[in-house]
């Protein structure tokens, strides 16, 4: 079973529907004991970093998530991915979970797209991911594929953790982490077949690491 961490800041049901389509059982929960019983954890999220951190702290889930991320396969999605780093420029500066070294920065409106035009913010739509390191997450994807993004801040993890990059005004780390502790900036649950493949790869890894 995959547990989807429920902290009222997310698209938990979209993630659950995507796993259900793959025939994978999930449970949406905020109970640390239930989360600890899962084969793997998905940490979703949409919205703002400040509010999400406030929700995590208020429910005491911040501590539980920090501990579980050490002992269970863990996949952060979108805002969940950003919160795994140390801090974010969003909401005037927010300290986040610090599971992986690095920071989240705001896209700069003076940045330019490859055609020379200023970027639009949010970065919304389909964009390529260029794998820069092998990862079980990429199994069966076959090179560059496109995924669905929606975000106004971008992650900048320690370069040692970068697994895949995307170009939008600059080249940013759209997939990062290490085996069993992954962060993806895009929405795998909304990225068609390649997105579903990422979720099924995560599940396979969870089952294999039991």
């Amino acid at each position, binding site marked *: 079973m995959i547990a989807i961490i429920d902290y009222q800041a997310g*698209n938990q*049901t*979209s993630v659950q*529907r*995507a796993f*259900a*389509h*793959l025939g994978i059982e999930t449970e949406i929960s905020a109970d640390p004991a239930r989360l600890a019983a899962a084969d793997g954890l998905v940490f979703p999220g*949409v*919205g*703002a970093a400040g509010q999400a951190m406030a929700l995590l702290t208020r429910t005491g889930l911040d501590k539980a998530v920090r501990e579980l991320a050490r002992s269970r396969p863990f996949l952060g999605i979108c805002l969940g991915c950003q919160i795994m780093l140390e801090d974010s420029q969003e909401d005037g500066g927010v300290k986040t979970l610090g599971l992986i070294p690095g920071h989240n920065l705001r896209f700069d*409106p003076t940045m330019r*797209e*490859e*055609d020379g*035009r*200023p970027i*639009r*913010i*949010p*970065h*919304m*739509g*389909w*964009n*390529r991911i260029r794998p820069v390191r092998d990862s079980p997450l990429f199994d069966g994807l076959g090179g560059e594929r*496109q995924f*669905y993004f*929606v975000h106004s801040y971008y992650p900048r993890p320690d370069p040692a953790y970068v697994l895949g990059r995307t*170009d*939008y005004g600059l080249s940013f780390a759209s997939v990062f982490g290490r085996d069993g502790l992954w962060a993806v900036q895009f*929405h795998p*649950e*909304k*990225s*068609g*077949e390649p*997105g*579903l*493949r990422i979720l*099924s790869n995560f599940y396979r890894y969870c089952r294999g690491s039991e």
Partner: protein
Amino acid sequence: MLSKRIIPCLDVRDGQLTKGVKFQGNIDLGDPVAVARRYYEEGADEIVFYDITASAEGRNVFLDVVERVAESIFIPFSVGGGIDSVAQMRAVLLAGAEKVSLNSAAVKRPELISEGAAAFGSQAIVLGMDARRAPVSPDRPSGYEIVVRGGRTPTGLDALAWAQKAEKLGAGEICLNAIDTDGTKDGYELTLTRMIAEAVSIPVIASGGAGEPRHIHEALTEGRASAALVASIVHFNEYSIPELKRYLAERGCPVRPAPAAKTL
């Protein structure tokens, strides 16, 4: 580089498509869930649903459609049509839509945009605007005005000023429907599209007038749109989504290639 999006638009009344959609082999489908699934498999980048049901009963039928769509397709989709409260936005988002499209209700009460953005994030709030050419006046410096009720009622609002106001209020995207070209199949309203797209920094979806692949190309290049809404050009099997994407790709327009084959 970010891909330009092709977004089929489906009108739903009482849980059924208002017009059937013909796929290759002239299979005519009226079920919005089945049609959404087909477009998903063909490589649509997103889907827009407009609920044109009037009754409260029909609304519940529509929410059921939204839920079934969410279980069948794994790309973003948005829902519009008569949404005028945060409670209604919550209902369609919980049913599985990524975005809600606000139109007339936001003209009436612009704070609806900021309330929606505060509750669900800007990424979930699309401003749908219907605009048409109007004489330039001090109140309407852009030469385009906003109309409501399917283009019948003028509001006196300047289209450009309204787009910029909506961005400030927290809209994450604008779906710009040009009333003058809507249904003509003569091409999108490029002057209007470009004017709005250059005046805001959020993405703009061009809508109204697609009859040929080159129209879509024009909207995405000259018109500076991030996405193109398509209806009859794909619904009546004149062009398929993979054909439109190939056309754009051959002309150097970045698109997400249509999926090769179904695997999962």
